[in-house]
């Protein structure tokens, strides 16, 4: 069936070799050195010198990597050493009891663990949709010229010191929650039992909101990066199938970036868990587990920050260090998960060239 067509390829009759010397035009100057590179810079075969430099560099890099591990190890060791008093007395009950009584020297960290987890999850619930929306807007919708400015503004949020957020929380957010937020939520969602209690303003919800604002930049900027890293070909594949703008975002952009976005969220979670100053200022610092989000609470970090300077007894100090150990373990695990998620996408990423 196929047409057998011979291509009438006309070849130049002159042999290929005959043309090259004349095209160079250097036939007469053949005795001059052709190279412009001074002899000293010419690449030689590997010498001992080279191997030595390689070896030194290698050692140096290994030492750098090791020093990080040593530092982490030292911190963990110190935390364990300083908290042995409390560990010996309370054992695993430290993690599961709710009494925190410095006077009676009876310590259980459960309310702080609960507060840390709830305030961080609250922050995620508020920050994730906002961050993803912002990242999508920056990468897909806003004009190119605005991209840089908007990204800069978002990153600026990350540069504001934690204590400033705390002040803002005390003087703006808490009064607002007290006079507007709680009455509103209690009226319409009071049946959930999440918004009851006296109107302090400060409490778990205030902490969650402040944390959400604080982790917004990191989630936004990392998800923006992974969305931008989705190759143009993926978008074109979706477009060519007749996808609308939103469908392109869904099946080409978000789907391909989902592991990275997940990593970004976990990284934000890690930050929320460890955040100290602002939370200490707005959470109310009471070691109780309450159903209401307007009740004061405590987090692991705020407990240490709040009580460390006043702790006089050895047992109290030791218990606070153990709180630190728990916090250290939680953040380490969360960050390890985040790093793994990010690694697992960048590794399998298709080439990013734009054809």
């Amino acid at each position, binding site marked *: 069936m196929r047409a057998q067509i011979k291509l009438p390829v006309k070849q130049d009759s002159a042999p290929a070799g005959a043309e090259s010397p004349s095209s160079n035009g250097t036939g007469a100057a053949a005795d001059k050195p052709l190279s412009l590179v001074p002899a000293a810079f010419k690449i030689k075969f590997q010498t001992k010198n080279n191997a030595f430099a390689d070896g030194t560099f290698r050692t140096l890099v290994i030492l750098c990597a090791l020093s990080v591990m040593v530092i982490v190890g030292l911190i963990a060791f110190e935390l364990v050493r300083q908290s042995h008093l409390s560990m010996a007395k309370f054992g695993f009950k430290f993690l599961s009891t709710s009494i925190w009584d410095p006077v009676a020297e009876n310590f259980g960290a459960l309310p702080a663990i609960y507060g840390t987890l709830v305030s961080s999850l609250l922050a995620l619930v508020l920050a994730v949709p906002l961050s993803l929306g912002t990242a999508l807007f920056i990468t897909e919708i806003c004009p190119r010229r605005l991209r840089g400015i908007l990204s800069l503004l978002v990153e600026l949020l990350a540069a504001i010191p934690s204590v400033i957020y705390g002040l803002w929380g005390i003087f703006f957010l808490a009064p607002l929650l007290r006079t507007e937020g709680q009455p509103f939520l209690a009226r319409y969602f009071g049946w959930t039992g999440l918004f009851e209690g006296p109107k302090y303003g400060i409490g778990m919800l205030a902490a969650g909101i402040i944390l959400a604002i604080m982790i917004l930049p990191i989630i936004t900027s990392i998800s923006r990066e992974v969305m931008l890293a989705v190759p143009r070909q993926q978008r074109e594949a979706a477009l*060519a199938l007749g996808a609308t703008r939103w469908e392109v975002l869904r099946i080409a952009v978000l789907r*391909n970036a989902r592991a990275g976005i997940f990593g970004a969220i976990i990284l934000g979670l890690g930050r929320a868990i460890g955040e100290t100053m602002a939370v200490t200022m707005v959470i109310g610092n009471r070691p109780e587990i309450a159903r209401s989000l307007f009740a004061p609470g405590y987090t692991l970090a705020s407990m240490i920050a709040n009580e460390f300077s006043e702790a006089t007894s050895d047992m109290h100090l030791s218990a606070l260090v153990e709180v630190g150990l728990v916090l250290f373990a939680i953040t380490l695990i969360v960050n390890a998960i985040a790093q793994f998620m990010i690694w697992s996408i960048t590794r399998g990423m298709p080439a990013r060239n734009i*054809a």
Partner: protein
Amino acid sequence: MDPGIRVQELNAWFGGTQALHDIGLEIPSRQVTAIIGPSGCGKSTFVRCLNRMHETLPNATVKGKVTISGLDIYGKGVSPVTVRRRIGMVFQKPNPFPTMSIYDNVAAGLKLNGFSNRRQLDEVVQRSLEGAALWDEVKDIMKKKSGASLSGGQQQRLCIARALAIEPEIMLMDEPASALDPISTSKIEDLIFQLKQQFTIVIVTHNMQQAARVADLTGFFLMGKLIELDKTEKMFTNPSDKRTEDYITGRFG
């Protein structure tokens, strides 16, 4: 006979630079039309104007008329999305969705159209994979393995299957085999030969032997202009234009 493609006074720009100048031609239905020309001459831009993909690039604009089944796809009120749903496109670099299984890749276009009947979907996926000569190779793994786990040639056939699944009338292929090894290339060429029973195919290639092997008609582009379009046999043995002859005899490009 319908749908062929009629192109009239088609111009395309990237910002201020014009990539296509007053292209006018007719592409007959159920035949393979090859577009050849040196790189940068506007071949990709041309086929991307046939399904309104060109305008999705930043600053890219189009002017002119492209008529398919009596409809000017650049006419007022025509939605580019519906145009693209009727026209399949295969790109130079295989671009399956890596986070979807092979099955979901093929079903992606139908799912966009709101098609969700499981049994019918199974049927369409099988028929599309068979149509793309990939069924036998993937039928046991298609629900478990990702589209990206296949070899380059298989990925390209998967992309063809994905385009076939929406039952387009026209199939645009932009150098579909240029990133593939010779064996995969010849599989793709065989496939094109079979597909032209049902589809109007436009294939861009910079490989003239490939054009000679698969195309009924060949159009030669140079610097954003259509130099000539004629029966492939005539183009390669006795072209009307001197520039075509220079190109196919290897004087430039």
